């Protein structure tokens, strides 16, 4: 149940790994002792799967409309999220800002580290060997495949999320949105733009 690997979904038989066995044992003990119920576990798994990237979009939109908030967000991503009432336990968040001179993009070459509490479950391509190996080696070619073509004068800064930090890209606010409300701005901020492989599209794009 707690195992959501693609192999399992395809019905391929695999013996439980050490950690899967530990998860089953711990869960059954907690249920048996009346500390949690199976329903609560199922609800939590469901909530995790449903979590999208809306929280990330909210953070970005707030930073676009409030320069002081943006300063705090860049200084401490974790504290600035808490300020919006976002509960992001154990997430050490670093927010990296795109500017006309610098474009940021995020990868985890070792596995698939990702700010799940803000962006939900990572897309399949983020976990693929192709993306993980090529994003550090030829980021311009990879970005072009996502439809992002940047001139050589724009420095590309790739962040390999190898350890305890998690990264969120703060994209640039599109032109022509000066009068937009925070909520409407948030609707422009899609998942890929916060990973750094897309640019939010404004009304003129």
């Amino acid at each position, binding site marked *: 149940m707690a195992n959501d690997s693609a192999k399992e979904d395809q019905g391929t038989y695999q013996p439980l790994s050490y950690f899967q066995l530990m998860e089953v044992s711990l869960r059954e003990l907690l249920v048996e002792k009346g500390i949690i119920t199976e329903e609560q576990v199922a609800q939590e798994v469901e909530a995790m799967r449903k979590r999208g990237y809306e929280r990330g979009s909210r953070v970005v939109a707030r930073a676009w409309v409030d320069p002081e908030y943006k300063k705090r967000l860049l200084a401490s991503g974790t504290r600035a999220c808490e300020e919006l009432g976002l509960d992001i336990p154990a997430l050490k968040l*670093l927010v990296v800002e795109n500017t006309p001179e610098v474009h940021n993009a995020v990868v985890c070459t070792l596995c698939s580290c990702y700010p799940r509490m803000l962006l939900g479950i990572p897309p399949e391509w983020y976990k693929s060997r192709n993306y993980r190996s090529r994003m550090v080696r030829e980021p311009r070619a990879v970005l072009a495949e996502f439809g992002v073509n940047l001139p050589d004068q724009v*420095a590309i*800064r790739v962040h390999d999320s190898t*350890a305890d930090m998690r990264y969120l890209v703060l994209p640039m606010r599109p032109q022509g949105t000066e009068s937009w409300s925070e909520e409407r701005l948030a609707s422009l901020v899609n998942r890929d733009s916060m990973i750094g492989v897309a640019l939010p599209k404004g009304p003129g794009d």
Partner: protein
Amino acid sequence: MADAQFRPGDRVRVIKAYPLGHIRTPFYIRGKCGTIERYCGAFANPEELAQMRDGLPAQPLYRVRFDQKDVWPDYRGGPKDVLEVEIYQHWLEPA
């Protein structure tokens, strides 16, 4: 925790070693030189945690910025393109 030995701006080299185990230093960056971008705090050593030990003393963690041309000699892209990788202090030496 172990004392932080490096400061932002310091030049460092990633140690070129190939120990077995759960290592969070990617292969492609070992032996490469970069600059400390920032100190991230100290964290239990993941190599020890993977062995079911406590990982203490906590290891200082840094973000190190590398010029792409220093990492991949045949890199194709802008001269200002960089790569930033989180590296624990015990994997770094002054360069």
